[in-house]
């Protein structure tokens, strides 16, 4: 549905973005990403709250993060954090990993997402690039059952080892589903 006010606001956003230093920086990073890894590698480029976010495929993730680490221009040397996510309604894209990188030299942050099917939750490990990835990946395995190929020690980290499910998946509601006194008929989900 065409909405004239919306079009106006996007135009205003674009002019604001041209003056905004963060937006300029993000545009530079994006140009570099496209130059290094090809434009078709990335889909869904966004900038929520000024943080450049790109989505890619899991085949590329190790290459991209290694390439960014070695890149002499931007120097993405710091893996801030990574976490898993589960969208059960996205068919064949149910699980995801979200990486936050930070270039301490230029103070630019970058968020990279990958999505893959629940039935095949295998992702390359980053432990050969970042020592800090070790426990982060163990946490993602523990919470979501994402398997990191090549991880030296992929065991549960926060939950007990004989737990037989991955509790952060959306299929496990936080509270007992049979309770009726807590159903949200009028409010929320």
């Amino acid at each position, binding site marked *: 549905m065409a909405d004239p006010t919306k079009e106006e606001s996007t135009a205003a956003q674009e002019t604001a973005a041209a003056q905004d230093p963060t937006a300029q920086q993000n545009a530079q990073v994006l140009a570099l990403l496209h130059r290094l890894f090809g434009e078709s590698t990335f889909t869904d480029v966004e900038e929520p709250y000024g943080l450049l976010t790109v989505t890619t495929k899991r085949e590329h993730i190790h290459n991209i993060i290694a390439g960014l680490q070695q890149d002499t221009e931007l120097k993405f040397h710091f*893996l801030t*954090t990574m976490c898993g*996510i589960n969208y059960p309604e996205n068919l064949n894209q149910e699980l995801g990993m979200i990486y936050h990188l930070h270039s301490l030299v230029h103070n630019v942050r970058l968020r990279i997402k990958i999505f893959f099917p629940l039935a095949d939750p295998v992702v390359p490990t980053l432990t050969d690039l*970042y*020592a800090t990835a070790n426990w982060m990946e163990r946490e993602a395995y523990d919470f979501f059952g994402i398997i990191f190929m090549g991880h030296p020690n992929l065991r549960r980290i926060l939950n007990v080892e004989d737990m037989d499910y991955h509790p952060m998946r959306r299929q496990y509601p*936080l509270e007992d589903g049979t309770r009726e006194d807590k159903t949200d008929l009028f409010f*929320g*989900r």
Partner: protein
Amino acid sequence: MAVNDALAGTHKIIQEAQEQQGGQLVPTLNDFSQELTTLNLGPTHPATHGIFQNILQMDGERIISGVPTIGYIHRAFEKIAERRPFYQITPLTDRMNYCSSPINNMGWHMTVEKLLGVQVPKRAQYMRVIMMELARIADHLICNSILGVDTGAFTGFLYVFQEREKIYEIYEEVCGSRLTTNMGRVGGMERDFSPVAIEKLRKWLKEFPAVMKEFESMFNRNRIFMDRVVNVGPITAEKALNYGFTGPNLRAAGVDYDVRVMNPYSSYEDFEFDIPVGTNGDTYDRFLVRNEEIWQSLRIINQALDRLPDGPFHADAPHYYLPPKQAVYKNMEALIYHFKIIMGEIEAPVGEVYHSVEGGNGELGFYLISDGGRTPYRLHFRRPCFIYYQAYSEMVVGTSLSDAIVILSSMNVIAGELDA
């Protein structure tokens, strides 16, 4: 010479042990042929200051490998947060780094404000800065004085704990509670500083420097203390960055990364302060960096208190900020807003936001994904402790047990933040 020979022998045993395990550190049973001992450090041990276990393999006094086990107080905060409205998540953040709860609270509020697009007035920002820096001082005081206790100096601990108690009294005056503060609201503070709070703060600012000087003179050039901490558990800047170190532990290794300067939040750009850095990232450097940060925090508090602007202490955002209770009884709009906020019916935009603050131990990040519902779709905490504690097993290899204890306490590993 004899010491060097012994060390070389130990290194050889370490290498062999690692090669046997395929380069990985794993616990083994007591190995009598090599005369190795397996030692459980923790889960409950007075020197670990928290519940976490390290299975150490020892060759006499030397540590050959350490395998950490964590998760003893895992409370599934990320899962619980998926069922709670934003304001109910604040008490969860209290319980992460419980030595500096206000920083966690404010960090969370700022994350939500960023998502909702709420502008917080200057006065509230300055008030937040004051409380966050008080929390940082309390956090560093605990870490450094406990380090003293672990090296055998109990007196300094008693001296500065009295000051920490006074900080907690200021908390109490500002928000009503002491340890798990639940301080502030989304949109500002829940109440203005009372005259008593300001008076207590000014009194403390006058008295504390003398105590801090006394504490420093007790430790900084103390021969016994220096023998225990200098060159113990050093880490290079490259390795620290690779391990994701942040905060005082990274700065002790010589990297001047501080979120307050790099990505200023809550008006930190208004204040003048220095970022102390160390040189070789050993226990002594970590101690000195924390001490210096206490002085810098004092500078910030003094500036913020002197320049505390007039004006409201919370944003004019009735959709998100609870109205005063008296108004709820008399005013229909206030009643409606109160009901909607308490029921979690605020209108949150769809989006994702990452916000980080400089916590007591480093970059404390909140990654919030909102699907527009009353609760976060996903909330991930970047807990600095969890990330840098994994370097511990590498840092203790080749040191003695007593050094391992000192390294642990100088890293300031807080179990609540480690396990979330």
